[in-house]
């Protein structure tokens, strides 16, 4: 075998027709898919009907996967930078050459600073065991993911109350009677199965209260929509809790058994009446009262969604936390139509997958972002990536020498790329491993093209839930270009550093065999279905005795010892954000259903549907500024300015402006999207170091922009 080639999974090259079950990779949801391959080419992709909820459905991005596969405007072979960083001058390198180059630089960093001088980031997900094993094998504690600009606040909120992360409590949306959403745009930031459940629930008569600064498509399906003043949903929750406690709308039995700190909670919301909240949020007090009474009447089959992308403002953590407090007050835990505790194989007495991570030696060094040492109330796992950049710049607590981005594009997804670039400039090595030319790849020293999700297999994923299951991303076709799967790339780097023991497998099948060893599942069975349920009957925990929260008290804690210790309030007073000057707006960003966050903008089929973003502002407000619909406008923030189109609509709050994230790209090789539209992250000047101190997520929607006709 050519030592420079990654072995395909057996059978990938066989001629004729094959049906392969896999997991979509067009966004981070990773829906189960069924792929039809004809003579080595993908001819059809649909949802994997072996997953009942999924059925044959697929979203537009998933449906555009063949166009992505056939697109030439993606990295095709390893590239080594020749000009200045970001200058766009590259030379083609062989894999051996690129990997040797990387290994030599990494060895230099290890010699100078130790393994801890290497930082790595990805976008989390069910295959993270592989990446974590790689980073640990390098001897670094500095594994990061994207979550500081995503769900960290919700994660920490959930941990502070239940001792479990946000995925520890799944939502039974399909059976709910009332779902409360705080800017969680289910329909456009979509997950296929979740949307289907949501539409099923609405079809069965469920209600939905949707709270946002603008009317999204989710608002268009909701039974109640409040166009709220930007960054004030926390006040609304405080008023909800006020009414729930004042009018005894809560599940007294559940609260008595499972909640500690009710008195403190009561004290904290003494003054947060609906009338008070009306002044903060603009939502009429009468409507707040009517809504919470209506919701409480349907308890326990109700859900207050704690948010997905919660890196919004300095009180996002408390918004999520109070949403979960409302869940506890409604007694909706381990309830149909409420929240169901996610169970793993262990909960059902089954042996789970063997983790790769346990093969790597333990790393004793502290994290460079201070998570776990300076910041003990944050979850150590992926740390907080925004804290990496100030650490690189200051060299404290220790100097860093290299950064590897794996399918993560911080220069697009974190705020203020200029500051990030200053930090990156201090490093000896920047590597991007990606299927796309990301903005970060364009700034890197080496780009390693990963095989696309259709061209690679991934390690087996084990998913917790009401019933745990296994999911397989099988390899559908051979790589079209000179690209490689991640497991091979990581192994090859480690081999060159003499650290490959933990990932020393010849083929992906060998990794799968290791993962499955000792379980009851055979690879054949898993491959024949793609998604394999591990238990037939769902078991619920005993709501009287067995909920088993992972807090010190075993109960839902209104006062969190970890926050106490960090000197942070568990039940914080509301901070009233200052009103904007005329012509100024809070910048809010989001998605449409046919683009993912930032790497489908150049896809031929999706670019055709939307090739440029526009800034939404309120029609009346725009009129006052002399701006007409479709005008070209200049948008400014803290010295940065950009131009784009405006969309005037009455369906956005006068103090907010909105744009779809991911545009304004600067990589000329992406010809369809190059230079089109505006980049919200560049307007977020100063927001890299601005975060919710209790939750850790960035305060992105505190960005204030000014807008005028260009």
């Amino acid at each position: 075998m050519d030592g420079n080639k990654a072995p395909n999974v057996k059978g990938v090259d066989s001629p004729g027709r094959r049906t392969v079950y896999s997991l979509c990779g067009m966004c981070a949801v990773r829906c189960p898919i069924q792929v039809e391959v004809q003579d080595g080419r993908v001819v059809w992709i649909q949802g994997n009907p072996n997953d009942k909820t999924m059925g044959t459905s697929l979203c537009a991005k998933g449906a555009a996967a063949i166009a992505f596969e056939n697109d030439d405007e993606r990295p095709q072979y390893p590239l080594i930078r020749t000009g200045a960083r970001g200058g766009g001058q590259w030379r083609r390198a062989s894999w051996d050459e690129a990997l040797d180059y990387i290994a030599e630089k990494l060895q230099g960093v290890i010699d100078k600073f130790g393994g801890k001088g290497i930082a790595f980031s990805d976008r989390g997900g069910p295959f993270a065991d592989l990446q974590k094993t790689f980073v640990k094998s390098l001897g670094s504690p500095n594994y990061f993911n994207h979550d500081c600009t995503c769900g960290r606040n919700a994660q920490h909120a959930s941990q502070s109350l239940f001792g479990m992360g946000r995925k520890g409590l799944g939502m039974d949306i399909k059976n709910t009677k009332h779902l409360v959403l705080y800017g969680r745009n289910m329909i456009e930031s979509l997950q296929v199965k979740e949307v289907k459940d949501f539409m099923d629930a609405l079809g069965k008569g469920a209600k939905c209260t949707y709270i946002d600064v603008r009317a999204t498509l989710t608002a268009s399906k909701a039974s109640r929509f409040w166009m709220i003043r930007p960054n004030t949903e926390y006040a609304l929750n405080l008023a909800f809790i006020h009414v729930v406690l004042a009018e005894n709308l809560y599940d007294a039995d559940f609260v008595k058994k499972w909640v500690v700190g009710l008195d403190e909670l009561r004290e904290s919301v003494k003054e947060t009446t609906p009338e008070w909240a009306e002044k903060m949020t603009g939502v009429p007090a009468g409507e707040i009262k009517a809504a919470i009474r209506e919701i409480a009447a349907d308890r326990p089959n109700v859900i207050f969604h704690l948010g997905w992308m919660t890196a919004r403002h300095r009180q996002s953590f408390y918004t999520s936390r109070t949403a979960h407090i409302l869940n506890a007050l409604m007694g909706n835990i381990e309830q149909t139509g409420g929240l169901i505790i996610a169970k793993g194989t262990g909960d059902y007495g089954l042996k789970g997958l063997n983790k790769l991570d346990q093969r790597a030696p333990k790393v004793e060094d502290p994290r460079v972002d201070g998570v776990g040492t300076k910041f003990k109330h944050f979850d150590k796992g992926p740390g907080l990536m925004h804290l990496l950049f100030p650490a690189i710049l200051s060299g404290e607590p220790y100097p860093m020498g290299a950064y590897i981005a794996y399918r993560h594009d911080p220069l697009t997804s974190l705020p203020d790329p200029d500051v990030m670039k200053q930090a990156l400039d201090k490093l000896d090595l920047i590597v991007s491993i990606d299927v796309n030319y990301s903005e970060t790849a364009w700034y890197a020293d080496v780009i390693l093209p990963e095989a696309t999700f259709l061209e690679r297999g991934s390690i087996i994923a084990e998913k917790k839930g009401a019933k745990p299951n296994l999911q397989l991303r099988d390899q559908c076709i051979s790589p079209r270009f000179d690209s490689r799967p991640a497991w091979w790339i990581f192994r090859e780097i480690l081999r060159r550093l003499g650290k490959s023991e933990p990932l020393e497998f010849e083929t992906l099948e060998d990794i799968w065999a290791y993962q499955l060893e000792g379980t009851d599942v055979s690879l054949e069975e898993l491959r024949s279905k793609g998604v394999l349920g591990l238990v037939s009957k769902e078991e619920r925990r005993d709501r009287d005795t067995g909920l088993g929260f992972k807090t010190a008290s075993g109960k839902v804690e209104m006062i969190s010892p970890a926050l106490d210790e960090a000197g942070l309030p568990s039940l914080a007073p509301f901070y009233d954000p200052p009103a904007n000057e005329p012509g100024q707006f809070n910048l809010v960003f989001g998605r449409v259903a046919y683009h993912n966050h930032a790497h489908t903008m150049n896809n031929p089929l999706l670019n055709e549907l939307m090739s440029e973003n526009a800034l939404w502002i309120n029609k009346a407000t725009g009129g006052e500024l002399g701006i007409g619909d479709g005008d070209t406008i200049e948008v400014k923030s803290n010295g940065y300015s950009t131009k784009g189109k405006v969309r005037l609509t009455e369906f956005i709050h006068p103090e907010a402006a909105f744009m779809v994230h991911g545009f304004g790209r600067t990589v000329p090789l992406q010809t369809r999207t190059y230079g089109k539209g505006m980049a919200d992250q560049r307007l977020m000047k100063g927001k890299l170091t601005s975060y919710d101190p209790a939750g850790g997520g960035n305060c992105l929607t505190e960005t204030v922009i000014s807008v005028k006709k260009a």
Partner: protein
Amino acid sequence: MSKYYLLQDSERCIGCLACEVSCKSNKSLPVGPALCKNMSVGPVEIKSLPRVRFVFMPCFHCEDPWCLDVCPSGAIQKRAGDGIVFIEPNLCIGCKSCITACPWGACQWDPAAAKAVKCDYCKDRLDEGLKPACVTKCLTQCLEFGVADKLPSGRRERFAAQIARDAFNPKG
């Protein structure tokens, strides 16, 4: 009229455009033509709530097709048996008469092939016992495809359930 009907439940449609992309992907179409379009109207305010309606527009496979009548080369044909109206690409001379003639804009122009293209209900898939691409992948399964004299009754069922709910629970 073809014997088939493609029905959209607008209330369940979410405007995700998976239908349009699935269609284009299946037919390997370049930028430009869209054999089906899910048109959205709104948002408009109805009873103080924002509401959007969707109208799914494939080809209607007319009984007496305007497009077929004007086609000078015999490229547009009606399939015996099920009445599907389709374009035989080898016969299309690219005159665009059908594009002018169709009252609903269903006939499209493929700039790469320099020929007209239109929805054929994915007849090759139908012949394999499958459903059209848009219907198969429709994210919420709000598109239904079937024989016109056996139309699904989902909307009636939902309406009946709603009436019953209101009757049992007068306060709403």
